[in-house]
Every structure is written in C-alpha cells, then in structure tokens.
C-alpha cells in the first residue's frame, strides 16, 4: 500500500493546490516578462514563467487522474516534486555562486543582492517540500530506483 492509497483525496487536493500555485505564479512571471512589469517577488521572465507553469500542470494532472480513479496518479506528484526540487537546487546553486562573486569583490558582482536572486522557483519549493518528502520516503533512493 502506497502513501497515495492511504490518503488519496487529501494528497490529491494537495497536488492540485501546489499545481495551481505554480501555474498562477508562473503565469504572472510569464506575463510580467512580456509587459516588462517587475516586482521583487515575481520578476518578469517569460521562459522561467513557462517552466513553472509546466511544473504546475504536472502536479495538477495527478489530481485529474486521481479523480478518474487512476491508481498511479501519484507518479505525477513525484515527478512534479522532482522537477520543483531540480529548479530549486538550480537557483540555490546560482545564488551561492553569485554570492561567492560578491564576497570576493569582483566588479560585476558589486551591486549583486540576495533579493535579485530570490526567484519564484526558489521560494515556491517550500509548498512542494511535503510532496518531495513523501516521494523520497516512499521510494528507496538508493543507486537503483526500481
């Protein structure tokens, strides 16, 4: 019995909620990228926005399949969490690398601030953490993930 079997509806709703949040924030970032509107929490970048929208769709797709009675719907929660985790790790690595440039006092990084690196893909992961935790807990992440 999988975690999804034990509490399908709750998990399904969680997957839908995370998916909608990603789609909304990603959509806002996508639109901001086109109209040139910037806020510190949702900067404009149409491609990064599109990436978040796709991740949101993966999460939401799981809920749709759960409603249809598909036993394997939690695969979408797992992949959504994995993609959200990859994007989070990517932004974290970029933040650390740029932070290093700022610490070393390189010219191009003198005006670098933590806030400008605070991309939605970074902070949005907080809502995806429970899904990522459940995925990792359920499947032994050893060398082989069979």
């Amino acid at each position, binding site marked *: 019995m999988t975690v999804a079997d034990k509490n399908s509806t709750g998990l399904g709703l969680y997957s839908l909620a995370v998916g909608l949040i990603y789609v909304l924030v990603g959509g806002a970032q996508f639109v901001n990228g086109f109209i040139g509107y910037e806020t510190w929490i949702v900067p404009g970048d149409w491609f*990064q926005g599109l990436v978040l929208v796709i991740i949101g769709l993966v999460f939401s797709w799981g809920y749709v399949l759960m409603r249809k009675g598909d036993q394997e719907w*939690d*695969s979408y929660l797992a992949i959504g969490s994995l*993609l959200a985790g990859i994007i989070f790790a*990517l932004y974290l690595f*970029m933040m650390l690398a740029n932070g290093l440039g700022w610490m*070393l006092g390189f010219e191009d990084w003198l005006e670098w601030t933590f806030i400008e690196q605070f991309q939605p893909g970074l902070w949005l992961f907080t809502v995806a953490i429970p899904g990522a935790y459940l995925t990792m807990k359920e499947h032994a992440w050893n060398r082989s993930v*069979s």
Partner: protein
Amino acid sequence: MKRVKAVLGDDPELAFAEKRYNMIGDILEECLTKTETGMTFSDKLDKVLLNKYLGIPIFLILVWALFQFSIEASGVFMVIIETALVTIGAFFGTLLAGNEIAASLVQDGIFGGFAFILPFLAPIFLMFLGIAWLEDSGYFARAAFVMDKLLRKLGVHGKTFIPMMLGFGCNIPAIMACRSIEGEKDRMISILSNPYISCGARLPVYVLFAAAFFPGFEGSVIFSMYILGLAVAIFTAWLLRKTLFKGEPEPFIMELPIYRVPTLRESVLHMWERGVVFLKKAGTWLFLGAIILWFMSAFGPAGYLGIDPDVSVSYTGILGGLIQPIFAPLGFDWRLGAALIFAFLAKEIAVESLGIIFAIEGDIAIGGALAGVFSPATAAAFMIFILLYIPCVAAVGTIKSETNSWKWTLFSVVYSIIIAYVIAAIAFALLSAIGLGVIGGA
C-alpha cells in the same frame, strides 16, 4: 526480408523483437514465482516522463535547467580563471619589458589568447556535469523515446536523436555514433543533420556575446541557440528524407535502462572525460592558433605594427576585409569576418581571435568592447552563423570518413554555409526591425 515481412505481416525487426521478448517472458513464467508488486518506481516515472503531452515540455525544462546551471552559475568561476591568467601574463610581460615584440607575444598573444578561452572551461565542465547526470540517471534514453514520436512524423528515425544528444558534447563522436543506425539512408540523414547540434566548442561564443549584448537573459538566449540548432538539424533531416533519401525510416527498437540516482564519482568522471578534450585542445591547437593569430594581427605588409596598432592594416585585417562585403548584410565587420575564417579550425577560436584583436588594439574588457562596436542584432546573427556554418575541420574530416564520400562532405559544407547565411540574415533583419539594430540597443 521481403518474404519474411509477407509471412509475418509486420516489419521483420519488430516481429523478431516481439518473438524474442515473448520467449523471455515464457522462460521467466516457468522459472520464477511472481508476487504482486504493482508498478516499479521506474515504471511510475516513465508514466509521466514518457507522457504523450508532458514528455516534450518536461524534456525542454530539463535541457533549459542544464543551460541555466552551466551558464548562469559559471560566471564567477570564469572571472577567477581569467584574473589568474591575466595576472600571470602581466607578470611575464613585465619580465620581457625590454623586448616589445616578445612581451606582446607572451602577454597579448599567448596569455591574452588563453585568458579569453580558458575561462570557458567553467561553463563547459558544468554543462558536461549536467549531461552526465541526465545520462547516468537513464533519462537520455527516454529523451530519444519521447522525441521519436515527433521525429517519426517528420520521417526521421528516432535513433537519430541519440547522436543528436551526444552532439551537445562534441559533433565528432556524435557523427561516429551514427554507425549504430542500421538503415543506410537513416544513417546518412543522421550524419548530415548532426553538425547543426550545438557542441561545447560553440558555447564560449554564446557565453561571450550573450553576456555582452543580452545581460540578464544569457541563459535563455543560449538555450534558444541550442533549440535553434536542434530545430535546424530536425528540419535538415526532414528535408533530406523528402528529397535525397526518400523512403520510410527503419523501426525504432530500444531497451530503456532502469532509472538510477547518479553517483557523484561517476558523473565527475564522465564530465572529466569529455571536458579534458577541450583542455587538450587548448594546450595544442588553441595555443598554436593564438600564436598565429597574434602574428597575423600584430604584423602587416609593413612589418610589426607596434603597441595598440590599427589591426585593420594587419594580415588579419586584410583577410577579414576581403570577405567583409559578403557579410555586410549581416552587420559583420572585418573583425567578425576574420573570426569566422579562423573558427573553421575550431569554433572556440572565434572568441580567441576576437580576444587577440581587441587586446592588441588595447581593449582588455572584450565584452564591453564588442558591445561598443556591434549591435545586438549583429551579435545574434553572429551567434547563429557560428552555430550553423561549417562544423570545425575535424568534424568535416569525420563526415568524410563516415560517409566515405567527398560529394556528401562537400554537400554538408555548402549546405551549412547557405542555411547559416539565410537564417542569420533573417534574424538580423527581424531584430533590426524591432530596434535591436543599433549599437547599445539591447
């Protein structure tokens, strides 16, 4: 084979594979006791990653993440390498202060050339690390599977996508990998479409121009270059199938490996195996290229041109000037023209040659110098031309040996120049029309 096909009513290769797996299934049925385990985690991942609608968008996300990882995060490491090389070059330049020509050769030629090319080790190694992760996890094979549906609609063999993915590293092993494609027509299509896949050697050019002309959007601009290369490769394959290699592609049979969490040791090893090729090239061809380029830029028919000379009267300037009229519609001046000629040896030499030309002219900060001379539209056209025109001399040699035909090699070279020119001209015209044709207009 025709008789077998008539008897079986299916493609023989598919029928044999099906029979073979049925036999394996029967044997397992007899000697294994099954317990109900449901789908494995690998099966579950495949359900999403191979999804008809989500498969390709997820593939694009992962490739985009790969370029963000290798480009946006490598800037600081590039500056560290560049600072170290400039400092060492200045030190040796001081030691040779009594001899102007020797000091210029060491400082502007050798260390100047290295300072412009070796920093690109950072994005190249990071990109190879990312590729190793995708490969070791078992995802790369799925990418070929996902793209097969799209490629097959265009009449292209799904297996073509595997050499295409290898081409992101280097086109030479990728072209050689086309040997694994069974049908002769499919193999030729794979070989002739592979050079448009953007290899690691083109990356330094993109990094330099994207950072100078499109600050804040480097990752997305470079990602667009890779997607454009992929699109041109697929278009070329489609065109070849419709014209010169008519027929149906052979069936695509591939065993998907199980997913694995890549280990750091294996990934670093794979990254090193690929990255060291660039390092060796820097120590041999790029070193030699730096000396030739320095000589051609510091000397002209009038002899040594002195400190901070007018490079347009040097041998490099004369050579670039000869082809400049051809490239004028793309906004290229003699410097970009000369860079294109030298880049035929290896694409990274474009950066090295621009670095040496600008260093000899007294501009050390090449990015700023380029942005002060060219418009973003010219920069984009140059990146596109570098992406699509003749692959390096070694790749041309590999095409010759793999096709065993001068005719197809020549076809590949001429076709690549035409398609590069046409697409670069279109991009230049479109970007100029939206106001990016002015210097400093990004």
